[in-house]
């Protein structure tokens, strides 16, 4: 038991590195630009309707923490790892590696899914936190340059609207999405048919279904957190 547990920690670390650390650049760039875009877009809307843009930083931050931060990050994560997980497990099934694992008394679920799950949840949470930090920071830079807000004013308005429980809920969302990705992708891999076409199909389905699941789960969670 002890050995097997160590084996899994090793695997989990591998996955945390692959899913978390190696996804940092894409999340950094994407969410940074999303942060910038939101400032511009909301400034436009606010000026159009309210003739005033003082609440732009607050609204963009609220939207970022409550929705876009975890959702965009996890959709990016899906596109990066969903196909990979499904294809890897699918290939292992096609090449009898799964059977080989069973014959070596290793549970493929323990060996393949659990570490990916740990890695994916770790990656989803870490990347979401980084994403929010990056988008707030990017938004601050643009708001100061473009809207003439001072940094103090920016963060005051932002943190009047965004409370710490929002961040906790946001991380809960990330954890749920981070769970959905490897489970859906692994499921697609395990039920993969024979041949390389089937592996490709499994990979595509993994991305499509994980993305769909994330968007639906986001609605459900938002409803549970804020609408009840």
């Amino acid at each position: 038991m002890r050995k097997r547990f160590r084996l899994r920690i090793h695997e989990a670390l591998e996955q945390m590195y692959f899913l978390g650390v190696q996804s940092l650049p894409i999340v950094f760039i994407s969410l940074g630009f999303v942060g910038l875009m939101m400032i511009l877009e909301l400034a436009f809307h606010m000026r159009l309707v309210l003739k005033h843009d003082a609440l732009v930083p607050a609204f963009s931050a609220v939207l970022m923490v409550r929705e876009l931060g975890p959702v965009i990050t996890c959709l990016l994560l899906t596109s990066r790892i969903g196909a990979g997980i499904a294809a890897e497990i699918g290939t292992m099934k096609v090449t009898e590696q799964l059977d080989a694992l069973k014959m070596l008394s290793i549970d493929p679920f323990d060996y393949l899914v659990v570490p990916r799950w740990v890695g994916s949840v770790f990656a989803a949470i870490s990347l979401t936190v980084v994403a929010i930090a990056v988008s707030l920071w990017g938004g601050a830079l643009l708001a100061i340059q473009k809207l003439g807000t001072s940094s103090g004013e920016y963060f005051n308005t932002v943190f009047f609207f965004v409370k710490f429980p929002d961040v906790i809920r946001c991380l809960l969302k990330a954890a749920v999405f981070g769970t959905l990705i490897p489970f859906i992708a692994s499921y697609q891999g395990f039920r993969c048919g024979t041949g390389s076409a089937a592996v490709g199909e499994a990979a595509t389905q993994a991305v499509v279904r994980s993305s769909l699941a994330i968007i639906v789960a986001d609605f459900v969670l938002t409803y549970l957190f804020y609408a009840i």
Partner: protein
Amino acid sequence: MISVKQVSKSFGERRVLNQITMQVAPGECVFVLGKSGVGKSVLLKLMVGLNSPESGEIHVAGLKVDAENSQTLAQIRKKCGLVFQFPALLDSVSVFENISFGIRAREISVNPSEIEAKVREKLSLVGLNEKVLGKFPTELSFSTQKRVSIARTLAVEPDYLLFDEPTTGMDPIATTGLNHLIKKLSQELKVTTVVVSHDIKSAFAVGDRMILLDQGQIVFEGSAEKFKTSTASLAKQFQEEMF
């Protein structure tokens, strides 16, 4: 002791095994021969519960193979080693990891130096040197991968050894070496061996007994000597192949 009783298995419309009954005695080395796609590999997988039969029963070491009963299945698998037709090595880890996995998982040994010694021993049994240990499976040739795969199976020291096309894709020298190994394991360590193959030469060289499968049924069963004189049409085709 492996006993197969009236086992049938279909894939969709195609019935690959039809009421198969056979037995493998302890320490015996049985070759299951037949053309490609007659269900030889399926038979092996049924023996370790990787597939379930539609009807019939299989017992290994007195335990009933039942895909539903995971505890018994785990016990059976602990006694068995299966060498797959394709190497089926885990591509994400090194050769050393691949071979030592089973040793760790089955808790045959927990001492790192002991594990390493075992890995080296099994590697030399399949005629590979230690240079491959740090490499990843994808860096190796097919025949080397296959030998690593055999080493991995031997590393868990099974009582029952099941080979699925062990010599396919191997050069003649390696084939001869493997045949010697199988014979040695069977004779010296009294390992019960089932080899699924279409390599008639190996069968003659190693096998105690031969079973010939055709269209889901056993068309011949008996020793090598008997096989040579068999009148079954498929046996004749195999004989022609041999000589």
